[in-house]
């Protein structure tokens, strides 16, 4: 059991982070907190990719004459490149989410989910 954690503690931490994010998205009642939960969740996935790409004692993936072709001397650049894209996507998603929240706040005057739902219902009835 303990072996599972010793070698892989960064992975365990990303899973914990994912669960925190998921908890925020599903359990919190404030829309803004849900959005923050989503951000935490996405960050956990970004960290998962980065942790996987990391090597002890390796350097940036730019060709170095002293190191030559030794593959183990360079960090894998692909996950980093992918995650740059993922970060951009996550920023864009947050932007759209915040824009929607502004519209919700203007229409209902609150970001608390139960109250918003209540006001939606009462409008439909009238």
């Amino acid at each position, binding site marked *: 059991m303990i072996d599972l954690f010793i070698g892989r503690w960064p992975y365990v931490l990303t899973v914990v982070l994912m669960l925190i994010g*998921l908890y925020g*998205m599903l359990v919190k009642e404030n*829309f803004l907190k*849900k*959005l923050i939960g*989503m951000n935490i*969740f*996405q960050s956990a*996935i970004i960290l*998962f*990719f980065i942790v*996987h790409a990391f090597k002890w004692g390796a350097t940036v993936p730019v060709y170095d004459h002293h190191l030559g072709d030794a593959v183990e001397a360079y960090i894998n650049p*692909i*996950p980093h490149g*992918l995650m740059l*894209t*993922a970060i951009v*996507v996550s920023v*864009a*998603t947050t932007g*759209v*989410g915040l*824009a*929607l*929240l502004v*519209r*919700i706040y203007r*229409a*209902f005057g609150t970001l608390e989910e139960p109250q*918003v*739902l209540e006001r*939606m219902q009462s*409008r439909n009835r009238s």
Partner: protein
Amino acid sequence: MIESTLPIGVPLLLLGGAIVTVGAGLVRRSAAWPITLVVLVLSALVSVRQLLVVLAEGPLTHRLGGWPPPIGIEFAVDGLSAFVTSVVVVIALLVLLYARDAVRRETPEEEVPFFALLQVLLLGLTGMVLTGDLFNLYVFFEISSLAGYALVGLGSREAPVSAFRYLLLGSLGASFYLMGVGYLYVLTGSLNMADVASILPGLIGNPTLTIAMTMMVAGLSLKMALFPLHGWLPDAYTYASSTATAVIAPIMTKVSAYVLIRVLFFVCDPALRATIPVGSTVAWLAATGIVVGSVMAIAQSDVKRMLAYSSVAQVAYIGVGIGLGTPFALIGATLHILSHATMKSCLFLVTGSVQLQTGRRSLHSYEGLGRVMPWTFAGFTLAALAMIGIPPTAGFFSKWYLVLGGINAGEWPIVLIVVASSLLTAGYFFRLMEKIYANPSPSLKANDPGMLARISIMALGAGVLVLGVANFWFVGEVLQPALPATLRLTGM
């Protein structure tokens, strides 16, 4: 594989179109619709040409920036992706005809952003279909989703709330997919679909592979609104503007279904699929979804919401086909992508027209509308009959293939559910039909919508019939060559 620039044609046209639309919209707001129309007509021509070339000469590829795969990103088009691209663009084009007047009346302030976002949405969807790279697919996935959230958020006062919930769940789905891609990358060191497909057979029995596939399927099912992950769909469709619903409902869930087919049947090979219990799980969940969606649809009094729940049930048919995974079932699933896109867009266009003309949405208020809007409801009736699955409409044949597929797989309970669900569908549509063709009250003032909207509704209605009649040709010539060789019918 033939090297060609055709695969990037449609996404590039749409990207250019979106930018030009925003630019021209700053000067003249009314320029947005004609520009979008031109772009979509061109895209439709390119996508149909691409389909013909692929059918005649075989798969096409394009290497972005000249980098060879698996290092570079590759756009790969085979029969299936060319087919789905054509469906997406042609349906969007038909809905666009209706959109001119509807968008101007429903969301007059947002006319330019609406059409620009529409093109970005289609850019994302066609990109998802055409790309041959798993991570690139995620990026297009998010492009289409972001445009989709914004489109759903326009419309009524409640729309932003449902759009926000859609955004949370949609991002969760995309994140799960990304996580799955991450695991696959850890295992194979590659992101190119063809390359991953050639590496995976050596990894059979690896538990990480099961986790990777489960995460990808879960994420895609969420976007596809497969039961029990359909929670976002009814609200999103009900509160969005009629044009947004008519574009998003028929197309977006289908593209996710396509990606599911791509991952399960093209990236995984049969021996690998047999070791992962994903197929039967998807089939059973989808079968439950058919029943739940249909029953919920019967319980609704708002017509648009009823159609939204019926979408849950109809997407589940595709899920059943994918889950069963037999040759007939896959034909059923792919044919249902097309037939459901045609009928659902037609139905949503009609409810949109009714809402624009009379402001009515509830089932009871549809009384007599069929008499005063004869052309519109002729299309509606055709599409509704196809939804129930009455021959010779398109809906009948896709269910027919699904039933055959279920019999081949020996899954009798699922066969029973697919057949019995036609009765449930008939339940909610006949109830509506009865109202529509009742005698109108004298105070009812409505008539058929303008010429363009009428053309799009009639074309989709007629399409349902034509697809049904021509389906043997269609299955033999287009869908059969599109499926992997191990999953083709023999002797057809």
